[in-house]
């Protein structure tokens, strides 16, 4: 490949290290799935598979014994279960945002992280979907919440936000899965073409759906991708808005708030980006993806984390303002209780993690420091978990009638279920890293300078060729 110097557009760094050839890109990504898994992967996989097994056992005990093994009680009917659900859904948000919204806005830097983010979305949504199912008292009747025609003519309650959740999250999951898969097709074809073993070739061939890289394929692919991106974009806003309706449409002080939909969406993007950051930094280090995932990507992500973190901080402040401004004594009490009640520690943890820690990213040096961003990304996710805990538990534990006030404390099973869901997530994610191209090969090739038909070092046809399997 020609090593021509290209002036970066208006001082922007290139998205791929200079001089990385198309072939090298293919190599960097594909070889992960072809070589023996590194030692680090195997250790992590063993660890996360153990936690997945713990999750299985915990769920078994839960279904056999009842929700009582958790700490949920009256008045705190929901606790870690729904906290985890909302947290995972929030994490699952970044995928679609990065894939669809940034795609529509032509943010080319997304190419390095979109596959990652989408995979994370899928697995996070799986973890999320698990919680509303197992948190019910009789999970074997969960199908009552689906509109299945039956002889008794009993339908789900379409007025219930929980039912909206069922539709919103399952739609989101379906669209995200399709979107992810469609994006994977050219890369599966690449893996197929590089395969030396028959079984590998068969499986990737099956998954590649007969992709040959023809112009017609590319034409259809681009259109499908665009349409799916357009379909997913409203979902980015809708899913977490609907999840927030679980709370916003209730009568509980601390839940009954109109700010919830945008606040939840911002929070979801915030936590999603943080989770992508955590995972990406690990994978980047383990697999040496420095050429494809550059500091510039990370810096851009940090800017989004800073923005959404500040948005979330604004929402926290606005909640307090409205509680005071509304003149509603129950509402006022709910917020004072959040900040100064028995769960104040959770509230201030949340503030410290979500509002204060991202402010470090105002400084360019910190924004570009791998270790700082790694720590902050983890802190943000801790903070976002606490945000949901604060909303759910501190609102419920002291609401209208002081006679019914109570406290919540988690049991071992609460902790194991949560840890188990992390195990499930990482197991799925590690399998993804091992067997599926973790970076969109085709899309990254589009953003190398050589892909530009006007690039002096590029071949007029290389734009097309760069995308396919070479």
């Amino acid at each position, binding site marked *: 490949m020609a090593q021509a110097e290209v002036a970066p557009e208006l001082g922007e760094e290139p998205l791929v290290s200079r001089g990385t050839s198309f072939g090298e890109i293919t190599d960097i990504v594909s070889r992960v799935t072809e070589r023996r898994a590194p030692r680090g992967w195997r250790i992590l996989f063993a660890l996360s598979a153990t936690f997945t097994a713990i999750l299985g056992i915990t769920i078994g005990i839960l279904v056999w014994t009842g929700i009582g093994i958790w700490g949920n009680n009256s008045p705190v009917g929901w606790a870690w279960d729904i906290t985890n659900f909302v947290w995972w859904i929030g994490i699952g948000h970044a995928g679609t945002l990065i894939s669809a919204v940034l795609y529509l806005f032509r943010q080319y830097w997304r190419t390095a992280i979109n596959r990652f983010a989408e995979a994370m979305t899928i697995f996070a949504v799986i973890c999320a979907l698990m919680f509303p199912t197992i948190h019910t008292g009789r999970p074997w*009747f969960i199908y009552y919440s689906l509109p299945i025609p039956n002889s008794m003519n009993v339908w789900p309650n379409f007025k219930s936000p929980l039912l909206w959740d069922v539709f919103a999250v399952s739609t989101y999951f379906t669209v995200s899965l399709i979107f992810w898969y469609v994006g994977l097709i050219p890369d599966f074809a690449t893996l197929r073409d590089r395969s030396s073993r028959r079984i590998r070739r068969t499986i990737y061939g099956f998954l590649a759906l007969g992709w040959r890289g023809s112009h017609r394929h590319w034409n259809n692919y681009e259109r499908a991708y665009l349409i799916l991106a357009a379909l997913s974009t409203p979902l980015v806003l809708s899913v977490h808005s609907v999840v927030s309706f679980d709370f916003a449409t209730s009568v509980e002080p601390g839940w009954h708030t109109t700010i919830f939909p945008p606040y939840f969406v911002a929070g979801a993007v915030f936590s999603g980006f943080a989770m992508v950051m955590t995972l990406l930094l690990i994978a980047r280090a383990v697999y040496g993806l420095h050429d494809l995932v550059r500091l510039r990507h990370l810096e851009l992500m940090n800017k989004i984390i800073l923005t959404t973190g500040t948005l979330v901080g604004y929402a926290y402040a606005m909640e307090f303002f409205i509680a005071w401004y509304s003149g509603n004594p129950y509402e006022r009490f709910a917020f004072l209780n959040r900040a100064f009640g028995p769960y104040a520690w959770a509230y201030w943890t949340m503030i410290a993690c979500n509002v204060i820690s991202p402010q470090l990213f105002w400084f360019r040096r910190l924004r570009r420091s791998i270790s700082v961003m790694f720590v902050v990304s983890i802190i943000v996710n801790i903070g976002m978990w606490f945000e949901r805990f604060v909303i759910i538990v501190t609102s419920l534990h002291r609401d209208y009638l002081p006679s019914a006030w109570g406290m919540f404390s988690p049991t071992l099973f609460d902790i194991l279920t949560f840890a188990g869901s992390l195990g499930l997530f990482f197991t799925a994610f590690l399998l993804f890293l091992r067997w599926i191209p973790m970076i969109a090969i085709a899309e990254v090739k589009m953003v190398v300078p050589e892909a530009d038909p006007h690039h002096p070092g590029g071949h007029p046809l290389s734009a097309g060729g760069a995308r396919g399997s070479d």
Partner: protein
Amino acid sequence: MSKRLPTSTPVDGRPPLWRSLGEKRDPAKRDREAVAEPAVQVPERSVLGRRRFMAISGATAAAIGLSGCMRRPEEHILPYSRAPEYVLPGIPLHYATTVHHRGEPVGLLVETHGARPTKIEGNPDHPASGGRTDAQLQALTEELYDPDRPATPLRGDERASWADFDAWWREKAAELEARGGQGLAVLAQPLDSPAMRRAREALQRRFPQARYHLWSPVPYTNARQGARLAFGQPLAVQIDFGAAQRVLALDCDFLGLEPGAIRNQRRWATQRRLLGPRDEVGRLYAVEGTLSVTGLNADHRLRLAPSRVEDYLRALATRLSRAEGVTLPDSVTAALGEPEISDVPPSWLDGAAEDLVAHRGRSAVCVGWSQPPRVHALAYALNVALGNVGRAVRFVASPADEPSSQVEDLRALTTAMREGEVDTLFILGGNPVYDAPSDLDFRGALEHVPTALHLSLLRDETSLPCEWFLPRAHPLESWGLHRGPDGTLSIQQPLIAPLRGGRSDQELLARIGGVRAWRGYDLVRAALQERLGAEGFERRWRQSLHRGVVDAPTPPLPSLPALREADLASALGEARRARPEGWEVAFIPSYQVFDGRFANLPWLVEMPDPVTKLVWDNAAYVSPASARELGMDFDEDEPSTPRLIELSREGATSLTLPVYVLPGQADHVITLPLGWGRRHVSRLGHDVGFDVYPFRTSDALSFATGVQVRTVAGEYPLVVTQSHHSMEGRPLAIDATLAEYRETPAFAQWRNPTPHVGPLWTQVNYSTPRPPAEGGTSYDLTPDPRPPAPDAPARYKWGFVVDLSTCTGCSACVVACQAENNVPTVGKRQVALGREMHWMRVDRYYQGEETEPRVLVQPVACQHCEEAPCENVCPVNATVHSPEGLNDMAYNRCIGTRYCMNNCPYKVRRFNFLDWHGDLHPLEKMKFNPNVTVRMRGVMEKCTYCVQRIQRGRIQARAERRVLDTGEVIERRIRDGEVVPSCAQACPSEAIVFGDLNDVGSDVHRMAHLDRQYELLASIGTQPRTTYLGRIWNPNPEMV
């Protein structure tokens, strides 16, 4: 059935039948085998052939079935009312019976399903009940089906039978008879029963030397002794709290634990129920050491150590004697002395005295069981002086055979036992080893008795050292005849044959007394015949059985003898003493387990104490100031401070138990609820509370001074169902003084206005169902905008009103609901987690100072909101609105998301977090109400307004509709009062009213439209069907 394989022998020349080719070839082989077979066969008789098996199993099944449904007493018992011609499955029968409860008989109606008693109601014809019950009576069915009740007599640890006992007794009786009964002793429960007396007389005829003693750990004899002191006769005092406009209760929990509390509550409520601002309302002064149910309903409450109540009464008597129109004998006045009561606010003398004097003849001074006889006597003298006797205060004859002091009676027995004068001791009921005063050391005395027998429901502390354990028939399994304090005779008829083959006290007594007809039935009939005479007895017997109350003229009130001034004066003069210093303990019976007899009943153990809200434990109650003085850093928000104290006193075993900081407790008084810490009550015999009896001695049955207290290291977790006691300034339980009420009758609406802005959508119209011709169905929820047709049958619109002015907080409703609706108990740990299942809870809030708190109680169950927040959020439509406005739960549909629970502003929904019922003993299963689903784990439940009772009423009304000749159907509406939820039916103060709000003439309509009405959390717009009536206090203007 009769098809048999024909033999291979040709019949009628037809070709032989064969089953295999071999058989065809050699038909004789089969016959050879058939012949050879019997040699190896087991004898034919024991072969269980198919037919025989069917026959036997059929007969067994029939026998099991019969024994299951025929468990009725052999004697003829009669249902209370509405007896159907046959017993119909699903249609409950009610039988009237009577149980002796807390010192007096209470008439009951017991609901039975297929001869299985399931629910206790009060007998409206019985004066002690008036159709009402209390929490402990509600738990009788649970006691009946207690699986821990042994099924046979036990001799040592060996199982025996009643025949064994009878054979043993025949020998023993002969031996005793030879000595004239010397060495035979009986320790029984105090009981005013003509049948029991007959049995006892028979015993004494047969064994003239036999000793007969009575003991119950909460004796009510001081009042009678007081009467003996004052009038020379052991009369019993009866106060009509409906007639007394001004009541001064001195350490007297007449609304809670004193005898007749059910009647007292009912009568007291009549002068607290305000229908308008012009109504008069009574005033209650309470002087007590510990906040009691009476204290939390008092308009003025003075906290005073029990030992100092006498001082106050003396001072008040002095003050009253100076008032005009009050004539207290001078000798008595002189003997009153000048007690040191500088810590009592002067208004409590002047204000209270003036008020009592102003209401001469319409007031009452009452004294609790814990006070010594002279205090009772002085109160009687004051009642006489105030002209109350004959009006609100009456004196009635007390049972003749009662010892003047039970504790002295027990002391005489234990002395005799220790001196070897007793060789055969029958203990009929009770549990003296556990509850006798510790200095009498009943357990030690029992060692000296060669043969002790204990007739008891459970094998308890007393049974263990006894040679014989005899199963005692439960009150619902026994016959009895009771005489109430006013002379009313009432019959106790068994609802079921003894499940564990027990005998009642009087049966055993009659049996050992050699009465030939010793069965309870015969004893009761004989005793009643003695009263009523033989003429027309059979008819009157049947009538009495049916009504539960014997229709006989009550004996006239004894004429009140003149006050024995000299005796009273000398008693008062002798007892004059210095003000006691230091710490003091007070013993009170527990609101839950009373003296310990209910300690094995989870319903009661888990019922929150009406005052402290403690469950599964008792504790030492101390005032906040005393707790600080003891150096406890208790959390102000969490009065259940798990700190331990050690109490010690001369002559008593020291005691270590946790402290509960109780506002309103007198300083330096430590109150110890009795009845907990049982060690041998099987299931609940471990770690359930603390036994305080070892600290209770015969000289201090109710309170003791000179107690040393020190804090002890260590913690003990106490569990309360309500941990926050302030309303946080919210308008929840709304109260006003009478003056405020008269000024602003709608004070509750002022504090908590009902928004008059409806929702944006059309609401259900409960009064205009669409006729079926227009496509409407009975379950048609479609709102109809047209005005109702004038002749359209109105729908039912169920409503529920709680009058906070009459609610005493006694918690009878809590257990009544539990009994009716198969509500499970969950255990201490789960209550600590906040998972108690009570559908009805009684919230208790403190206002004002911690020393003199004003207490508000508020029963809260599902409010059945018109715009129910729970209904919208259920994803599966498991909780829906009924066409009559009920918020229904479809358990089968519920998947348990708990969203409804979260969104319920009243937090009245209860979730089955675990399988609360677990593996039930077959006996325990019998207590369930068959008309109410037993909920599985994982589903939500809550108050249904007793929808099963509404349906029963509906079915009844429908069955009684009339079809005219023209074919027109005239539906009968459910009448007002026909459907009563369990809580409302139990409520002794009739504070809960239920009915159809569409029926303008109904009680509930009237109550729901009183000016004091308000909706709980009305501002949310839930439009609850349950509404409250604000609490009215009537403080003395002089004392505010």
